[in-house]
């Protein structure tokens, strides 16, 4: 394939060459185990500490509140399962939302099987959690509130500061899955009363297989991976030094470019939204128009099925997704689109395009032009469209 327009940055991103560059020495030269005594390897301990500080700075946390994991899913599992265990004497009720990533939802289902009760909050038609419902859901035995910072499918940004305040007032731990939000919007764990925060390297031009969980000092949470004394005894396993260095570098890059990069993305995002709304009939923007990740565009095209759309786009060199990357292969339409009230057939016809730092206006012009033809073509073979037109003509 010659042309490649990558609009799936919410699924994963290209690792930036500078990030790879930064990692390289830690494979073949400074490969020592940071737990070792001799200087050659022990130096890696300091290297890791430095990355912790870079990352802590990015969210207003201290370096020693950052615990490295293998990615967002592990961070989410850790936050939920280990908090549940640590707090079980206080209660067994957890509050989350209907639009969380599966790493949260399936972990909650698991906890339900283990005797916990979970309240899944509804969202409004723009995919925003309703604060009054949250307040109503709180019970004396509520031990944890977990609400994602921003949604991975429709990009809606949640009222995290308000949620944090509510949690704080009630003395309930607050976790947020910031896998999509981190390095896309500024985050301050103190202002938002966040006790735990999950993030993943590969969503921000960092490497795959590395992420972190922020744990506020004083939060009592168990280990998830037991063993060696790494990560202040909270997460065992020889440190993934190159991965950690790559993550640190990626965060450093992303933080320094945040304003400019997301400013540009927001402009391109709105340009894409405008052109699609103007030029393709029977479409619907999913997610909140304002409280939206700078790089997220999500549309439903009536009478058209998402996977067909994706394959057709692929044939034009355009990479996009329909719902979450993780759910492809599944028959069910996205739980997020259903949660915002879309009927099934509309939910099936959704297209997510997530811009990246390399996306240009020319790319998007090409995308819109291609998309127009493809949607028309697919509607031409859609029995739903046939019925719709016939009904209109009657």
């Amino acid at each position, binding site marked *: 394939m010659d042309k490649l327009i990558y609009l799936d940055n919410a699924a994963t991103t290209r690792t930036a060459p500078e990030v790879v560059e930064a990692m390289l020495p830690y494979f073949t030269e400074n490969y020592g185990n940071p737990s070792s005594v001799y200087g050659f390897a022990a130096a890696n301990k300091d290297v890791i500490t430095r990355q912790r500080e870079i990352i802590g700075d990015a969210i207003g946390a201290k370096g020693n509140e950052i615990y490295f994991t293998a990615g967002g899913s592990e961070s989410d599992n850790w936050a939920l399962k280990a908090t549940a265990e640590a707090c079980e004497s206080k209660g067994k009720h957890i509050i989350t939302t209907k639009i969380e990533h599966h790493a949260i939802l399936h972990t909650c289902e698991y906890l339900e099987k283990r005797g916990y009760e979970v309240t899944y909050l509804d969202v409004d038609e723009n995919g925003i959690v309703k604060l009054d419902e949250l307040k109503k859901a709180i019970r004396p035995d509520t031990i944890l509130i977990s609400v994602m910072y921003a949604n991975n499918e429709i990009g809606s940004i949640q009222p995290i500061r308000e949620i944090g305040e509510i949690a704080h007032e009630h003395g309930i731990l607050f976790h947020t899955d910031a896998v999509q939000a981190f390095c896309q919007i500024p985050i301050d764990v103190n202002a938002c009363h966040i006790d735990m925060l999950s993030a993943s390297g590969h969503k921000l031009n960092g490497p795959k297989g590395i992420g972190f969980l922020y744990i506020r000092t004083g939060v009592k949470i168990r280990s998830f991976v037991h063993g060696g004394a790494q990560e202040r005894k909270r997460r065992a396993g020889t440190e993934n030094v190159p991965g950690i260095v790559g993550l640190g570098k990626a965060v450093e890059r992303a933080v320094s470019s945040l304003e400019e990069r997301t400013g540009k993305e927001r402009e391109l995002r709105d340009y894409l939204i405008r052109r699609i709304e103007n030029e393709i009939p029977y479409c619907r923007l999913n997610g909140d128009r304002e409280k939206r990740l700078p790089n997220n565009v999500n549309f439903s095209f009536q009478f058209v*099925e*998402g996977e067909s759309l994706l*394959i057709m786009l692929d044939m034009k060199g355009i990479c996009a997704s329909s719902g979450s990357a993780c759910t492809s*292969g599944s*028959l069910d339409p996205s739980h997020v689109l259903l949660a915002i009230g879309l*009927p*099934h*057939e509309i939910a099936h016809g959704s297209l997510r395009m997530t811009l990246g730092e390399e996306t240009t206006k020319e790319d998007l012009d090409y995308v819109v032009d291609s998309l127009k033809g493809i949607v028309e073509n697919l509607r*031409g073979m859609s*029995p739903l469209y046939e019925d719709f037109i016939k009904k209109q003509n009657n």
Partner: protein
Amino acid sequence: MYTEKVMDHFQHPRNVGEIEDASGVGTVGNAKCGDIMRIYLDIDENQIIRDVKFKTFGCGAAVATSSMATELVKGKNVQDAMQITNKAVMEALDGLPPVKVHCSLLAEEAIHAALWDYAEKNGIKIEGLEKPKSDIHEGEEDEAEEY
């Protein structure tokens, strides 16, 4: 994930369209599961399928299996068309990913539904043909391993 044959039939679907005053029309599937197939048959007095068209809302495999199914039944008589199973469609496409096997079942079912419509309209009985289920996914089990 798809074979070349599937991709070919998806990109260049055969027999897309409608037939006015068709001898039989069958629509199966449902929007909830994300695939709906409609088959139009034009059957002559010798029970030969003279022409066939389809419209499909669904994934790549749904489109490709519809397209292949129409190719397989075209020119056959009604009894021979009955023999065309989802297996035959899959084989003709050099296989489908396991999660997409239901699409081939849907194609088989769509043909049967159109034949049933034809049989009803003409008051005839086709050997081995049963009334199509309204929803192909009815009664199907979730095959996904759960851990």
